[in-house]
């Protein structure tokens, strides 16, 4: 009997060992020869932008058969963050990746996760010299020398509006000032349309609205002052920016039950002519102008967010989207060389022109030739409005060294839609800052 049990145990152990060995050997054999370039970006899904991105990866693969490209890019926030956090914790960062924010990059730089692009931008003037100065400066991290991100997307966050609804409500031109804006909201409400398509369940929408108001009221530099603690969220001017968001909600600028709605639902309302305005970026232009997707396609127009009469100096302090590619600072030799080559292929003049002409995605370069016959007028308008900007910033929390501020600020802003006062929301955000300090 004893012998039999011993035999069973031996077989079980042998099986486990063989399985383990098979597991290990399988991977080694496959991966040993090739240089692997792993990407962890947000370029996933089925959009036309993603198709171009994939085409470029294929072109690179064809050019370098000795390289194995592994694209781990995720469209879903949670999945992306799970991979990024695990990569960081286990020290297996992708070659090309993306981290949201600027001020919070300091710790990643200290740990050697981020490559300083400055020498490579200087070395290849044709590629490096083509980026707009402002977009590269955005990735100069406070307290650090160098440029730590290559911008792969930019564009104005503006107000896309339905001209037909505006005319039906007796509004001849898009409101330029806050007072005119509030007046327009009342008129739109009177005709039973939703003034602003807002889905606060996707909290970035509420966050972007506050960003726009913040920059118009205090300017883009004020975000940096909040980040370096020269300003507090509980300062009266900052509270006032939150108060303006609350004022819009109290004026029924959004659909009832705004907190339970996602961006996709309210986007459909805007496309179907139920909502008069939507605050978003140029990535939505292709879907706004596609009649199959958007029955109101021919009525959609673009304008800048209104400014405050009391603060004309911040009239062109704009929110723009700027998304980067970052490169693992620990790469060396051939792997680094090839990774940089791929980043260049994704962001050079040819790529920028393809993205702009075919998908209305703007890589912030000065050397691109936009084909007026191919691009949508809304895209041209977006580029024109971008050129008027006197100050540019992305989200207010981008300048905050605390990584938790993205969730904290957005959640507190959304809480105002369910009754929290602007003062309490400000206190809640400031408490997070104090806790972090």
């Amino acid at each position: 009997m004893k012998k039999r049990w011993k035999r069973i145990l031996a077989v079980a152990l042998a099986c486990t060992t063989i399985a383990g060995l098979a597991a290990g050997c399988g991977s080694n054999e496959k991966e040993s020869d090739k240089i692997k370039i792993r990407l962890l970006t947000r370029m996933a899904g089925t959009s036309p932008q993603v198709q171009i991105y994939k085409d470029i990866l294929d072109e690179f693969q064809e050019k370098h058969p000795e390289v194995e490209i592994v694209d781990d890019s995720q469209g879903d926030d949670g999945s992306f963050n799970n991979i990024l956090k695990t990569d960081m914790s286990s020290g297996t960062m992708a070659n090309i990746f993306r981290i949201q924010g600027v001020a919070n990059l300091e710790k990643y730089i200290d740990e050697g996760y981020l490559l300083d692009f400055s020498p490579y931008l200087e070395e290849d003037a044709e590629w490096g010299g083509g980026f707009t100065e402002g977009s590269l400066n955005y990735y100069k991290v406070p307290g650090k020398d160098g440029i730590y991100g290559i911008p792969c997307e930019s564009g104005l966050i503006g107000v896309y509006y339905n001209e037909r609804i505006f005319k039906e409500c007796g509004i001849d031109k898009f409101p330029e000032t806050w007072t005119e804006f509030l007046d327009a909201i009342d008129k739109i409400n009177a005709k039973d349309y939703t003034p602003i398509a807002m889905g606060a369940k996707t909290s970035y929408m509420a966050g972007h609205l506050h960003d726009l108001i913040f920059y118009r009221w205090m300017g883009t530099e004020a975000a940096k002052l909040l980040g370096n603690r020269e300003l507090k969220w509980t300062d009266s001017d900052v509270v006032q920016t939150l108060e303006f968001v609350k004022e819009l909600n109290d004026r029924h600028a959004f659909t009832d039950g705004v907190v339970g709605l996602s961006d996709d639902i309210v986007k459909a309302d805007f496309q179907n002519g139920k909502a008069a305005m939507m605050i978003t970026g140029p990535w939505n232009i292709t879907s706004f102008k596609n009649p199959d997707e958007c029955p109101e396609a021919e009525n959609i127009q673009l304008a800048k967010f209104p400014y405050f009469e009391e603060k004309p100096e911040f009239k062109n302090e704009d929110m723009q989207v700027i998304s980067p590619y970052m490169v693992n600072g620990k790469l060396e030799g051939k792997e680094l060389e090839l990774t940089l080559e791929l980043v260049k292929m994704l962001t050079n003049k040819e790529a920028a022109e393809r993205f702009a002409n075919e998908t209305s995605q703007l890589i912030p370069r000065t050397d691109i030739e936009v084909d007026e016959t191919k691009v949508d007028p809304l895209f041209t308008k977006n580029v024109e409005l971008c050129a008027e900007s006197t100050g540019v910033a992305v989200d207010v929390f981008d300048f905050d060294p605390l990584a938790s501020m993205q969730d904290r600020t957005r959640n507190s802003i959304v809480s105002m839609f369910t009754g929290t006062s602007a003062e309490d929301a400000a206190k809640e955000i400031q408490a997070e800052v104090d806790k972090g300090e």
Partner: protein
Amino acid sequence: MKKNKITPLSVLKYLFLILMAAMFIMPLLFTLLSSVKDNREIFSNPFGLPEVFRFDNYVTAWQDANMSQYFLNSILISLATIVLLALFCSMAAFIISRFEFKASKWVMVFFLIGMMVPMHTILVPVAYIIGMFNLKNNLVVLVLLYVAFNIPFSVMVLANFMKGISKSLEEAAIIDGASYFRIYWNVALPLTVPAISTISIFNFLGAWNNVLFPLLFINDQKLKPISLGLLNFNGERGSQYGPLMAAIAITVFIPLVIYLLFQEKVEGGLAAGAVKE
């Protein structure tokens, strides 16, 4: 023949049951309806019939998003997981429930402690080990991970079930000269089939639906399971919900069929072991 009387209470009962049935069927109905619509229709008329039935969403899901390959991978992974778990856990459960030795209770506690470890808390060390030994993109490793995480629950259910099996059967086998392995294989195991079915259903669903492990440890397109395939439709700024819902409908189909086939055994297995001899 006795006729059931309609009483206010029975009407209330049926109303409640109808309401519950509607609540459970709604998400499935929404998924099926949305799988033949485009984004605009899904959001403007979520529960209405589509203007045009877009069955091509299923073709897009199956072909363009490589779902056929993912589907096969998921079946392989899930089947390997349930077979290994059924084998190893029934052995462990047999020893724990049928043998009286000093540490038997502690062995059971050891397995139960495993249930208290949340998956997320050990992700980093697991990721570190997998990175260190170059074990990414390996389905055997993925299966072993699923097996490891499902052992506690499976051992608990099987051990409780086996405790309820009559000892006289074992004693009869011993008198007939059966070895311990033979008792396990020919007596205990056949009688434990309802409980094995139960854990197999749960383990199958766990492996089939798991996103986290393959997300972190599988990035080879040829090895991805179906749960990762669904993410292919998610974009940073919007998704194509028609093909996504079609993919979900395909994904849900297999577990649904398996559940319907083994429904009685699952329910029986869960209840078993509650009352001892």
